[in-house]
C-alpha cells in the first residue's frame, strides 16, 4: 500500500516560492491500477516522482507498506528504488546499449551474475513480446516496441510497484491500446501495483480501477473510476469529461 499524507512540494524560484503540490492525500492499495489525471502543469509528474524520491517533498509523508520513506537517502534509497519500476513518456532507453542490455541494466547495477541477468532479461523480453529483438538497438525500434523494452527493464528487479509517467502519451491509439493491455496483464499476473499518470481520461478509464484528479497542485477528486466518471464532483473533472466528449464526438 502506498500512502501519501499531507504532501506539499514547493520550488523556490527567483525570490518567491512556487507551490506545485499542496496538501496531497492519497491511498493506493496493493494491486490497484491507480490513475492520476490532470492537465499539463497540474503537478502529476512531480507527485509520482515523490513516490520514488526523484523529487523530495517539502513537507508531508510518503509511506510504502509500513515504512515512512520520505527522508530515505543513500543505501536505503537505492534499495527502495530497486523495488519500484518506472517508465517514461519518451521511453528513456539507453541508445548505446542493445535491447537485452537495456533490460539487464537494473541487474547490472547490483553486480548480478551475467548468466542470470541474461536469462532474466530474455524471459522478460519474451513476456513483452520482443523475444527475438534482443540484439536490436533502440533506434531500430518503433515507439511501441521501445516502450515494451522499457516495461521489461522496469520489471527486471521484480518490483511490486510500477510508476508510469505519461507512458502512452507519445504513442498512437492502437499502440497505446496494446501497451495498456500489457500493463493490465502485468498487474493481473504479477500482482504489480501500477500508478499511472496521464492527461487522458479515456486512457485512465481504460485501465485504472481507481483515479485521482489533480488540478493546480490539489487533488480535487478521487475514487473508483466508474464512480468518478458517472458522478464527477469537481468542476475540473466535469470540464475534462466534457472536453474529451467534444473531441471524441
Amino acid at each position, binding site marked *: 500500500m502506498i500512502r501519501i499524507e499531507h504532501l506539499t512540494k514547493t520550488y523556490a524560484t527567483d525570490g518567491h516560492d512556487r507551490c506545485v503540490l499542496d496538501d496531497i492525500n492519497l491511498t493506493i492499495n496493493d494491486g490497484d491500477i491507480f490513475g492520476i489525471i490532470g492537465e499539463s502543469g497540474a503537478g502529476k509528474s512531480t507527485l509520482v516522482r515523490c513516490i*520514488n524520491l*526523484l523529487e523530495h517533498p517539502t513537507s508531508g509523508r510518503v509511506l510504502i507498506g509500513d515504512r515512512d520513506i520520505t527522508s530515505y537517502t543513500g543505501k536505503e*534509497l*537505492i*534499495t*527502495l*528504488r*530497486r523495488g*519500484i*519500476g*518506472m517508465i*517514461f513518456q*519518451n521511453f*528513456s532507453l*539507453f*541508445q*548505446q*546499449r*542493445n535491447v537485452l542490455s537495456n533490460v539487464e*541494466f*537494473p541487474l*547490472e*547495477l*547490483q553486480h548480478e551474475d551475467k548468466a542470470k541477468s541474461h536469462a532474466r532479461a530474455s524471459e522478460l523480453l519474451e513476456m513483452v513480446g520482443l523475444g527475438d529483438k534482443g540484439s*536490436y*538497438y*533502440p*533506434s*531500430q525500434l518503433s515507439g511501441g516496441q521501445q516502450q515494451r523494452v522499457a516495461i521489461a*527493464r522496469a520489471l*527486471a*528487479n521484480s518490483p511490486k510497484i510500477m*510508476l508510469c509517467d505519461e507512458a502512452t502519451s507519445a504513442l498512437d491509439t492502437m499502440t497505446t491500446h496494446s501497451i495498456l493491455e500489457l500493463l493490465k496483464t502485468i498487474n493481473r499476473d504479477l500482482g504489480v501495483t501500477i500508478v499511472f499518470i496521464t492527461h487522458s481520461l479515456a486512457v485512465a478509464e481504460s485501465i485504472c480501477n481507481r483515479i485521482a484528479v489533480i488540478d493546480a497542485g490539489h487533488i480535487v477528486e478521487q475514487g473508483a473510476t466508474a464512480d468518478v466518471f458517472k458522478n464527477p464532483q469537481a468542476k475540473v473533472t466535469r470540464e475534462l469529461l466534457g472536453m474529451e466528449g467534444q473531441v471524441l464526438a
Partner: protein
Amino acid sequence: MEWFQSFFAQYGTLLAQGTWDTIVMTFVSTLFAYVIGIPLGVLVVVTASDGLRPHHALNTVLGWIVNIGRSIPFIILLVALIPFTRWVVGTSLGVPGAIVPLVISAAPFVARMVEQSLREVDGGLVEAAQSFGASSWQIVCKVLLHEGLPSLIRGVSITFITLFGYSAMAGTVGAGGLGDIAIRYGYQRYQNDVMFATIIILIVLVQIVQTAGDHLAFKLDKRNR
C-alpha cells in the same frame, strides 16, 4: 619531376623526422590531456548546480582553474612552464619538452569538451538510471560516459587537431616537429618550398585525423543503425 626528386633528397629525412615528431608530440599530449581532462570534466558536470552532486564551492574553483588554463596563450604558457617542464621530464627541449606544456594547455580544453559531451546526454536517461537505484558513480560511468561516447570521440578529433596547431608553436622553443621546420627554414631562411611542404603535410595529417575520427564516431554510435 626532377625538382621534386632533388627536393626530397635534400629535405626528405628532415621532413619525415619532423612529421614523426609532430605525430608523437600530439598523440602523447592528447592522451595525457584526456587522462587529466576526463576526471576534470566529469567533476565540473557532477558538481554543477544541476548535476548529480551539486557543490557550489568546488564547482566554482574548478571552473576558475579551467578558465585560467584556457585563457593563457599557449606560446606564453610554453615559456612560463620551462622550469616546471625541466623538473618533470628533465629538459625543456625536443619532444618531451613540448609535451608537458601541451598537456597543461590542452587539459582544460579537454575538460570543457568532455563537459559539453556529457551535458548532451539526455537528462531522461540519468533520471531513468536513478529510478533503478544507480549510484552517482554508476551513472557517471554507465550512463554519462557510455552514452556520451560518440560525442567524446568527436572531441578527441578536435583536440588532436588543435594540438597539431599548438605543436607548431612549440617549434619556437626548439621543440622539433613540423612547426619547428617551418620556422627555421621557412621563416628564418626564407625557404618557402620547405615551409610549403610542412603545410601540405599538416593538411594531410589533419584530414586523416578528422576523417578517422568522424568515421569511428559514426560507427560506434548505435543510433545510426
